[in-house]
């Protein structure tokens, strides 16, 4: 019983997402169902008048009636069209609204969340769960409501025409619906296990393709293919069970169609002979009944589906309740006045990622003057990268004080904080779009000239204008159409354009060959004195640029 309530609540909650527009949405569904059903009723009336008037041979009356009915049908279809458009537009609009909500959260999760969760997991929420939740608005809800409403609409004239016959027919259909409902749960189980195997198969495929070099150099690649084939066989075997259920459904729908004909035949004969109903009414019921049972079948098919889809909505609601990154960094204390003259000062920082017990940074201190160029070095695992993440305000610390550009970290929101730092990561990420757009992300209101100026400073301008489309060159997925050195220089241009007082480079040259490294280092030389530069580095040539070296560990 408890589960039923929660399903109902979930449905209400799903609809509430639309806010005030939900009324328009629901009215549209009701109206489109009703007008569709009305069209069915008019169709049946056409039949009835044909059969009833035909024996009288009154052609004029026949044609007049037909015209009236066609007009009615036309009007109901136009009504249907109007509401169907409204409904579809509302459905897509709410899909957009939820998508924006999810994206908003996706961008604002605490940083640790991204490190702990496979990006595929978040993306599957976005594309798989959200897509299916969108289907609830776009089709599932209507598919359940429309047959239900239509059944009601059809029932009225049928009952008026002959209530005895109608009730008998409804009883037979009830049995059919019950059989379909029984099938729903095992079918859902089959499809759930199929999607499980399918994701395994996708993983093999991804191993085979992403690790293509390894797959070919080692015999294990062959084994991956074999495992895929084995899983494929399981998939086929499991699918067969689904097919049997499908066959039972098809059998019940077609068989009951015939069975109902039989019931109809027997009862019709009986009722007409007893004079309970006219032959015309019988014909009308018969055609109405065809649609009625069709809708009944739909209801049996789509109601369980709707329930299943609500589970996806639940996933999204759960996701939306994930904690967001806090506005300000946690654990910060106010710094002494002396620290406020520094570009960056970190005092008595205690820090650990929550999984480890031991402190990674223990009373860590560092001071960097305005306009200084500092290299931070040290063995891997000593906490260099951690320091850079703290400078970006990605984690809360246990204890200590941080000042950035003469402001107490505790007085700033993270947004203000990050405005003061231009960051160049080890693996430069370029977004989908052109080079121009990518650099401009450093400062969205920058002019084309300012973008090019930044590119010149980053030693990127020359290679960019030599590209076929220059600054309009599309960078491809993750900038795949450019070399590592080119991507890095674009990332530096982006950071320059930001005009932040502090630039932070996290091993920016470590993945580059000598030539590209030289170009990047030249760019850094141009920037010295214009801003404070912090470089996490271990290449001697990069370290040589620095005014001062901070050795960690």
């Amino acid at each position, binding site marked *: 019983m408890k589960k039923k309530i929660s399903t109902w609540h979930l449905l209400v909650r799903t609809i509430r997402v639309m806010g005030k527009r939900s009324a328009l949405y629901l009215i549209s569904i009701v109206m489109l169902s009703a007008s569709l059903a009305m069209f069915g009723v008019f169709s049946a009336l056409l039949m009835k008048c044909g059969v009833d008037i035909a024996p009288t041979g009154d052609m004029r009356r026949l044609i007049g009636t037909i015209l009236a009915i066609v007009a009615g049908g036309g009007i109901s279809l136009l009504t249907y069209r109007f509401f169907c458009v409204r409904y579809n537009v509302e459905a897509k609009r709410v899909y957009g609204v939820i998508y924006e909500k999810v994206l908003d959260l996706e961008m604002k999760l605490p940083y640790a969340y991204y490190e702990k969760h496979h990006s595929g997991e978040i993306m599957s929420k976005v594309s798989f769960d959200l897509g299916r939740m969108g289907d609830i608005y776009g089709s599932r809800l209507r598919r359940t409501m429309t047959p239900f409403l239509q059944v009601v609409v059809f029932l009225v004239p049928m009952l008026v025409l002959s209530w005895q016959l109608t009730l008998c027919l409804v009883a037979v259909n009830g049995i059919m619906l019950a059989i379909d409902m029984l099938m729903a749960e095992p079918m859902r189980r089959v499809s759930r296990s199929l999607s499980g195997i399918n994701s395994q198969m996708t993983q093999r495929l991804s191993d085979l393709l992403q690790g293509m070099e390894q797959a070919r150099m080692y015999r294990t690649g062959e084994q991956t293919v074999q495992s895929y084939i084995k899983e494929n066989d399981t998939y086929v075997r499991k699918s067969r069970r689904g097919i049997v259920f499908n*066959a039972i459904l098809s059998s019940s729908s077609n068989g009951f169609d015939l069975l109902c004909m039989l019931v109809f035949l027997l009862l019709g004969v009986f009722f007409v002979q007893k004079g309970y109903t006219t032959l015309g009414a019988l014909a009308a019921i018969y055609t109405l009944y065809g649609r009625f049972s069709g809708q009944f079948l739909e209801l049996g098919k789509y109601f369980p589906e709707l329930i299943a889809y609500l589970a996806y909505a639940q996933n999204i609601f759960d996701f939306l309740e994930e904690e967001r990154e806090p506005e300000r960094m946690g654990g910060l204390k106010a710094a002494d006045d002396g620290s406020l003259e520094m570009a960056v000062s970190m005092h008595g920082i205690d820090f650990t990622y929550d999984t480890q017990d031991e402190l990674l940074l223990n009373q860590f201190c560092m001071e960097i003057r305005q306009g200084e160029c500092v290299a931070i070095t040290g063995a891997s695992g000593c906490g260099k990268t951690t320091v850079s993440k703290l400078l970006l305000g990605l984690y809360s610390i246990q204890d200590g004080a941080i000042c950035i550009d003469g402001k107490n970290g505790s007085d700033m929101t993270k947004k203000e904080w990050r405005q003061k730092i231009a960051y160049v990561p080890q693996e430069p990420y370029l977004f989908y779009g052109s080079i121009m757009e990518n650099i401009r992300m450093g400062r969205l209101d920058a002019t084309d000239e300012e973008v090019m100026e930044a590119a010149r400073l980053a030693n990127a301008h020359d290679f960019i204008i030599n590209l076929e489309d220059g600054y309009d060159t599309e960078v491809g997925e993750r900038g795949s159409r450019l070399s590592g050195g080119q991507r890095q220089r674009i990332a530096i241009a982006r950071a320059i354009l930001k005009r932040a007082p502090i630039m932070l480079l996290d091993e920016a040259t470590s993945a580059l060959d000598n030539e590209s490294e030289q170009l990047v280092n030249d760019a850094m030389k141009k920037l010295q004195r214009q801003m404070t530069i912090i470089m996490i580095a271990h290449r001697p040539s990069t370290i040589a640029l620095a005014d001062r070296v901070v050795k960690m560990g």
Partner: protein
Amino acid sequence: MKKRKRYFLSYMMQYSYLLIGGVVCVCLLNLAIVRGNSVIGSVIDEMLSGNEVRLDVFLPEFIAITAAGFALAFLGQLLAGLYSVKVSGTYRKRVVQKLYHIEYAYLKNENTATIINKINSDMAEAESFLQYPLPMLISDITAVIIYAVYIGSMNLSLLIVMLVSYPAVFWIAGTLVKKISVLSGTYRAKSDAITGIAQDALSGILVLRSFGLEDYFQGQMQKATKALVDNEEKRTRLSNTAIVVRNMIQWLPNIICAVYCVVLVGRGVFSLGSLLAFIVVLGKMVQSFVGIPWCFVDAAGNIVCIKRIEEILNTPDEISGDETEGKTDTDVIISLKDLCFAYTQDSTVLDGVNLTVRAGENIAFVGESGGGKSTIFNLLCGFYAPKSGSYKLYGMEISEWNAQAARERLALVSQNVFLFPATVAENVGYGNPDATQEEIVEACKKAQIHDFIMTLPQGYQTITGERGALLSGGQKQRISIARAILKNAPVLLLDEPTSAVDVETEDLIQKALENVMEGRTCITIAHRLSTIQNADCIYVLSGGKIVEKGTHTELLDAGGVYAKMYRMKHSSEPAN
């Protein structure tokens, strides 16, 4: 040009007996429905003529028909379902096997994520082709034929009236359907754009956050969803107009036929019972008839996807012969003669490379980036075939070698280390599927990575993150070395990491390399000249040619390209 093979079609033919069985069942089912209707019609006629309806005659027949209906519907659906599952299962298997043997260039040129998405979604489309449009089309067409024959047998002139009034419906429905399918296509593209934004934001989260681009992306998303809603408005306007038009048109022949029927009944040519049966059958027939163009549209969408998979299947395999042993009586392991290669038509990457590697030798390549060093490795591994010249491995041409057998001889430690999303042990064990746990640990010890692995929370059972994100470059490199040790191949191809690692890690890697090089023939691509001073021969590549060769001292004395590189390196890295 070799004729393209149609794999999908051939699998469809292979299992066609299932489909034929299913079609037969559907035909019989339709016959049963028609028969049931005519029974009802004749009962009504009996009734109207005032005769006693003889249920004992009708009832057994009708019960038999109903029972047959249950059985036939079950069997028909079962066979059609089995057909779909078998064909698509076989097809999937074929595609994966193909991907394993497909020429390397195909995979390199396409983005792997794109291939995976393509295969997943196109495969689903291929499956749904077998599940929906194909059986629907067959059953719709057979239904139309059977119903038409039935109506014709009742009254031939009625059939003719019907046949004349329907093509118009068919035609109008067809044109509308085409327009709608175009809009559905743009809908897909628009919703893909939305997912693209979400994906991009997630992958670049660090940059996004440090530059405060949240609002920018939110704006992009709003634009994209607005485009989607606008498109949807247009699409539903059109598609619902189509529905209105279609339904109204559908009525037209209905009315014509019904009026004509009434005329026939008035003349006494046609009984009222037959009229009722006719109307019911007509309704079913129209349903099937109108469904046919929609089936074609669905099928057209599916077939585009199937064609894309067929394209993959028709891409050439990598070259692979029958040779599995090679010549055993020679100590020349690798010999390249006038080797030329180009990735595309107009750019030469390797231009007449000659060299010989004997068993136990240790040789190295150096040169500027883009000089062709990595390309030589690609050729040595048989990922690409030489354009001209010869590459002999153990005295046999590479084209004669079985690709797998040739690679059994080579252990590759590349820069581009891929870690599978699996445990560390599984990742190392990838080097040899038969390796025991002890052997894996042994290899890790030799690769100087064991101590690090033991510091991980679950040791060897720790899952390495997506693309091995949890491990540093140096650690990945050592895992790759451990794999190579496990593989135990006689020839080691080593592509040195370009990325500098800290001094401590460098020592570990150096030790690991010494372990893996021991007793093997080694070919190294060197980025830092410090590591190859003991090489037996250093080849300097420039512009696809070998411009200098000799030992470290010889080359320094010669005062050429190598000597210049060496000096530059040492002036830019004063700390070394």
